[in-house]
């Protein structure tokens, strides 16, 4: 009990610090684990149990999230970007590892460890920023899911490499067979068990966990790692609505086990030597510096806007929790030495800690300046227009306003910071300027002072302040999402368009109509029925 209480206490402190400093919890949990190990309060047996169980649940829940529908229309793009990033970064990692003097097997492990990005960290950031549903959010999600899948499927391959192609092929074949089984469960068995049988919550949990261990056991029987089976068990539950019905219960299990896992894993780490530290920093540098341009280029090729591609690249610039799994497997199979595992863990800790600092709006904005299309577009524009409707931001709403205005034959001028959008507009011969709608110089060139009316759909309310200050007597409509922003805009002389208010009003219109049409259940329906039957 003391051991488990200590592990929990370590995790509790790590979570506290993570919240305090606004950092991801995973690396802090590992640091806490390292510290606990120094104190020596946690028995080794418990550490092992915690790592094994934690790992099982980590991959299980990762599999559960693998619903391709969440990626939506971005699936083809995610496939291309995901595979390309995986292969390119893996190759760079392999070369770098060989260059740093690792042997071939260790280099392969390191390469696999570097290739994927962290679902835990990125999804959390996207959730907090409410960007999961934006096109780049979906793309990033797709990339992550794909990479998880690739890593899990490659983990069984590495330990077999020394034993020749035949053994590897056999391993892959059994893995494919198990994937097939998972698919059968996904389509037929799980909906039956989870939905049709009408079991209570606890029984559903019981059955689902039984499947987890059945799959894991089958994997072991087929000489695949237990975790691969656990992952596929998760996959077999990943179809809607089954995943939605079991997610809440499994998430609280995984919250616990994942916290314990990373803390216990920290307990396995040895202090790095100076050489290992340098190696780790080299790898971390490669990941953080190479990923953003790589993903940006790939993302734009796949049809994303520049801004989205850059944001996606910044978000993906870290190694994955599965990198730790890869390292752990290598360690268990005695194919890599503890030092190499420490390097992998260090790279993961460092890159994860950097992500929230690197993947910011500010950074994306700065990097936009280096975008090769920027200079071309900024040059060569003539006199600022006059008497036009100026649109700041051309996302979904901006575009719809634009279309309406064009149909009515108005003169319109668009400012957007996305090169992709600008190219599209210019092809349609709509005057447009690529730049930041919060930038006074840009606003001057867009003729903000002499516009007839200005419509701003810029993301952040503060971005609309410059145009309000500059525009003088020109009416400015600003789309905002909350009351505080609406007040701020009104104080500065603009007309806020509050999305929540507009939506609530529309809702109420529908509500009144639905009520009148009898589409809603009237209050006390049953009482009325009882009265009628009596």
């Amino acid at each position, binding site marked *: 009990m003391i051991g488990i209480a200590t592990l929990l206490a370590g995790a509790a402190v790590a979570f506290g610090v993570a919240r305090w400093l606004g950092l991801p919890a995973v690396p802090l949990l590992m640091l806490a684990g390292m510290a606990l190990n120094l104190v020596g309060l946690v028995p080794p047996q418990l550490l092992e149990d915690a790592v094994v169980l934690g790992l099982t649940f980590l991959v299980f829940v990762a599999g559960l999230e693998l619903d391709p529908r969440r990626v939506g229309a971005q699936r083809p793009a995610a496939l291309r970007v995901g595979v390309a990033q995986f292969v390119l970064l893996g190759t760079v990692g392999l070369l770098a590892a060989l260059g740093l003097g690792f042997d071939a097997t260790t280099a392969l492990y390191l390469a696999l460890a570097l290739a994927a990005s962290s679902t835990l960290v990125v999804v959390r950031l996207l959730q907090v920023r409410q960007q999961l549903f934006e096109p780049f959010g979906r793309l990033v999600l797709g990339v992550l899911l794909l990479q998880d899948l690739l890593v899990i499927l490659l983990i069984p391959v590495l330990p077999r490499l020394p034993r020749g192609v035949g053994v590897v092929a056999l391993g892959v074949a059994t893995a494919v067979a198990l994937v097939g089984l998972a698919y059968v469960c996904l389509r037929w068995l799980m909906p039956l068990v989870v939905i049709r049988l009408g079991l209570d919550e606890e*029984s559903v949990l019981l059955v689902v966990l039984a499947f987890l261990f059945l799959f894991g056991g089958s994997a072991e029987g087929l000489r695949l790692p237990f975790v691969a089976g656990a992952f596929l068990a998760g996959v077999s539950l990943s179809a809607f609505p089954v995943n939605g019905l079991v997610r809440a219960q499994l998430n609280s299990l995984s919250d616990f086990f994942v916290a314990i896992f990373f803390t216990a894993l920290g307990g396995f780490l040895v202090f790095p030597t100076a050489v290992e530290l340098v190696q780790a920093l080299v790898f971390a540098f490669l990941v953080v510096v190479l990923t953003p341009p790589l993903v940006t280029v790939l993302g734009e090729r796949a049809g994303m806007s520049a801004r989205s591609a850059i944001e996606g690249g910044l978000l993906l610039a870290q190694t994955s929790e599965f990198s730790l799994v890869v390292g752990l497997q290598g360690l268990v199979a005695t194919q890599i030495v503890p030092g190499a595992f420490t390097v992998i863990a260090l790279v993961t800790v460092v890159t994860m800690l950097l992500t929230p600092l690197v993947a910011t709006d500010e950074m994306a904005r700065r990097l936009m300046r280096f975008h090769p299309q920027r200079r071309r577009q900024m040059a060569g524009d003539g006199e600022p227009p006059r008497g036009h409707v100026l649109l700041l931001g051309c996302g979904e*709403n901006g575009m719809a306003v634009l279309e309406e205005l064009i149909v009515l034959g108005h003169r319109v001028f668009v400012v957007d910071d996305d090169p992709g959008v600008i190219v599209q507009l210019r092809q349609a011969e709509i005057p447009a300027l690529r730049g930041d709608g919060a930038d006074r110089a840009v606003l001057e060139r867009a003729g903000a002072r002499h516009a007839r009316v200005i419509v701003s759909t810029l993301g952040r309310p503060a971005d609309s302040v410059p145009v309000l200050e500059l525009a003088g007597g020109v009416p400015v409509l600003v789309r905002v999402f909350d009351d505080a922003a609406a007040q701020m805009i009104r104080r500065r002389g603009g007309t806020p368009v509050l999305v929540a208010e507009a939506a609530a009003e529309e809702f109420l219109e529908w509500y009144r109509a639905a009520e009148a049409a009898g589409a809603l259940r009237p*209050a006390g329906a049953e009482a009325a029925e009882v009265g009628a039957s009596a």
Partner: protein
Amino acid sequence: MSEQTLVRDLGYILVAAAAFVLVSRAARMPTIVAYILAGLVLGPVTGLLEVTASVELISRFGIALLLFIVGLELSLDRIRDVGKVALVAGLGQVAFTAAGGLVLCLLLGFDLAASAFIGVALTFSSTVVVVKLLDQKRELHTLYGRIAVGIFLVQDLVVVVALTLLAGLGSPGTTGPLALLREMVRAFAGMGLLLGGALVASRYVLPRVFGWAAGEAQTLFIWSLCWCFLLVLGAEVLGLSLEIGAFLAGVSLAQLPFNQDLRRRVHPLMNFFMAVFFASLGVQVEAGAAVAQWPAAVVLSLFVLVGKPPILMGIISRRGYGERTSFLASIAVAQISEFSFVFAALGLRSGLVDESVLSLIAAVGLVTMAASAYMILYNHELYARARQWALLRPLRARQEEDEVPPARPRGHVIVVGMNALGRRLVERLVEHGERVLAIDTDPRKLARLPCATLLGNVEYPSVLEDANVAEAKLLISALQIEDTNNVLAYRCRALGVPASIHAFDRSVEEVLSEIGVSHLLISKNAALRRIFAELAREGILAP
């Protein structure tokens, strides 16, 4: 490798239990029984499973979480009103059952020492079994549930004293009335100390600390578990049971706004670990020895199942509680406890009884736990049957109900997600004269709303149950979380409740329409229309 053993053991337990639950679905087998049967199959029957240190640890962990949940559900105020009846009934039950068991054992031909010993072992009821089932039935907070929990807490103290006394029997010179008194004082002083500490913390420390982390579900979750195990360790240091420590940890968090949410989060973890606990009970049975004792086992099991409840019922109804409450609370004690096993093992070690008594008690324990699981699960039906057959008339208990269950909201409009849109929807609907229930995961977002509120994550079915979605007029989600919205839409459709779901982006509309919702709240369109209206005012567009 040792680590593989744990995963394999857990796998065996879960697979076997799941198989039992699925196969015996027609018999509506309680999960507890499935776990015990799984343990029997894996242990005595096939020998696949042994109780290792890791399994033992997980079992204890599960018990701690279970009692933690009970504490979260029952704040001190809620059990204070049943304190007196619990004390009288708990002690009275112990005295009467012990006496009855003693007489019965003497009749069965056991010697006096063994009879006395078995008599005491039969008095303990299993907190774990009962609380688990009451929690599953969501009836912990009812009057009879609270009385049952109160009785168990009293019994737990008795157990602590009995176990320490028995442990002392091995070493001469520590028995006698003085030692008994010392142990009693020690147990109660420890209890007082821990209770005081927990109360002070819950008053001055915990609200501030946990308030700081509000909205961070995972942080709150881990912190609460950490607090639970701190108090468990504290209880162990003070010589109290792990149950009491965990219970007090729960109680000290019970007055925080998110206690229900926390309970839901701890729940799956507890269920998982308790499976291991119950299975390990089954594993440890010495089947051969138990079979040899079957006549005694049957008689004693019947005594526990049928004899114990009337004793308690008499006591409780004498305290002025109504017939239904007395019946339901008494039914709950019709089993013996896992402590009875520990007690018997200690007795064996100190030479008071022989091996056969141990296996007899184990057999009685398993039979009564399994049977009473059914009794508790179907206790309301049993009550109806007992009334029908006039079995309860001799007790002459009060016929009126002690409490009327609070009316659940009906015909209300549920709004999920208190962002700018959710708050506005609530305001508009309240103005419109609707009964509104607002749900969010963050207590700060629920503050200062003009309607009823519920804290919780709607992905947990129990939150929707608490909100009584099934009888709602409409459910609206203002959330901008695609997965949660989809699940809400799906559940509403399954219940036939109209749903209006926020489609905050083009890309989420397709799936929602596929699931089938009454209304898509497309906020971007609404915003667009507002922009057009404003442009019309500026004379740019035709109105």
